[in-house]
């Protein structure tokens, strides 16, 4: 987190820009899916007959995105070491949720067939990025917890 200090305070929220934009896109996708107005067609086809699962997917997407955004906002603020650790733990929670939901979405898109391969690979890349980032942050947190306990 040393690079945060080099950024102006207004830009610290965007210190990890991929997370922010993916989370914003997930909020925009998740809210209609949650309230049931608009749903991704590929996912609706994959979960045909399980509308509650589609709602759950939307809720999980929204929760993950909001958790990630809140975590990034908290990380960008000046705070104590424990506060920073808690914010990054929340970031891991949000990223795991995003990775899960985007993986589900990627599977549904790829299942459409050859036309869905491009969109599916991009969505799968977003899922992999979220999972990878969650793994990196959780490793840092584990090391810090270990150092704090010693």
């Amino acid at each position: 987190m040393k690079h945060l200090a080099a950024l102006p305070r207004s830009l610290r929220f965007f210190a990890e820009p991929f997370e922010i934009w993916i989370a914003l896109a997930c909020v925009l996708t998740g809210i209609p899916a949650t309230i049931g107005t608009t749903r991704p067609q590929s996912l609706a086809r994959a979960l045909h007959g399980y509308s509650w699962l589609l709602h759950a997917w939307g809720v999980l997407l929204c929760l993950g995105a909001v958790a990630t955004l809140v975590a990034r906002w908290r990380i960008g603020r000046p705070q104590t070491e424990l506060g920073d650790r808690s914010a990054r733990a929340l970031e891991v929670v949000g990223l795991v949720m995003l990775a899960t939901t985007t993986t589900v979405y990627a599977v549904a898109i790829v299942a459409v067939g050859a036309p869905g391969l491009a969109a599916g690979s991009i969505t799968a890349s977003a899922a992999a990025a979220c999972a990878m980032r969650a793994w990196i942050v959780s490793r840092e947190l584990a090391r810090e917890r270990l150092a704090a306990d010693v």
Partner: protein
Amino acid sequence: MSNLLPIIMSVLGGGTVTGTVTAGRWLMDERARRHAEKSATVRAPLIQRSLELRVAAQADEILQETITTLRQNYAELKAEFTQYRKDVEAQRQRDLKDHQRQRTLDHEEMDRLHQEITDANATITQLRFALQSSQTGGPGP
């Protein structure tokens, strides 16, 4: 599409388990943070009071050291001033003695000069008397 459901369910299940574990860790971290903030809030006045007392003790110590140093300096200055006065008095006495000795010498010299003047006047008077005698009567009877 029905064969997708087990895959999606397994992904969701895995994600749920991982999310639950990470959420548990986050809750533990959050609880630790809240606990630390709460104890910091409780301890803040005590820490401030402790710091105030420490600063006051340091100020007191510095003040005592300053007073001790000032006293030492005053004693040294007093001793130096006493010595200075003694030296000045001794010098004054020496100067006074020199002055008195010089005045005595001057008086003696003045007395000697007065005596010489008196002698010279007497000589002049004798010579004048002898001159008058020689001018009026030639060789006396």
